[in-house]
């Protein structure tokens, strides 16, 4: 029985509004880039699911194939690939991250009118 990794990933991002594929766990990140993403998500106050790729080599490779993106962490909102650490930080700085999370209903609406 071989696993269908792409389908497992699809189900994870369909079933959870915000998913971070990362090294380590939200409470104990094991990579500086993953830690930065967790910090940003906590700072904007969204709930999210962290998937620890270090626990599963097939997911670690599978998520890279899934998004054509060679690095981890990877952030998904509402099933859509948002980016890695640099893009997450850039979207946080421009306020776009908050807008997208508000639209996804995982944080309160921001004050902009």
């Amino acid at each position: 029985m071989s696993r269908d990794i792409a389908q497992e990933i699809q189900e994870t991002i369909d079933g959870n509004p915000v998913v971070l594929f990362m090294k380590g766990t939200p409470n104990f990140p094991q990579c500086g880039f993953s830690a930065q993403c967790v910090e940003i998500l906590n700072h904007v106050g969204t709930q999210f699911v962290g998937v620890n790729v270090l626990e599963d080599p097939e997911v670690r490779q599978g998520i890279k194939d899934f998004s054509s993106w060679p690095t981890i962490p990877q952030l998904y909102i509402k099933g859509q690939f948002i980016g890695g650490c640099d893009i997450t930080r850039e979207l946080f700085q421009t306020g776009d991250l908050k807008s997208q999370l508000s639209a996804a209903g995982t944080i309160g609406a921001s004050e902009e009118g």
Partner: protein
Amino acid sequence: MLTLQEVEKMIQAGIPDATVVVNDMTGTGDHLEARVMSKSFVGKTLVQQHQMVYGALGDAMAGPIHALKLTTIATED
């Protein structure tokens, strides 16, 4: 191990009009920082811009380059 110049050349080979600056963040040659400016980024999302750079680097991302802090800038001219 790739030199910083080799990494710059790889990115430039994939994005010919790009201005590329690569720095070594840790002194170990595998944690790099790249700033890439190109007209071909105009109209593309950040994900697409970064994918273009990753595409140019190809297998180097899976081996010699352990981490890459990437900044892409779309230049209008």
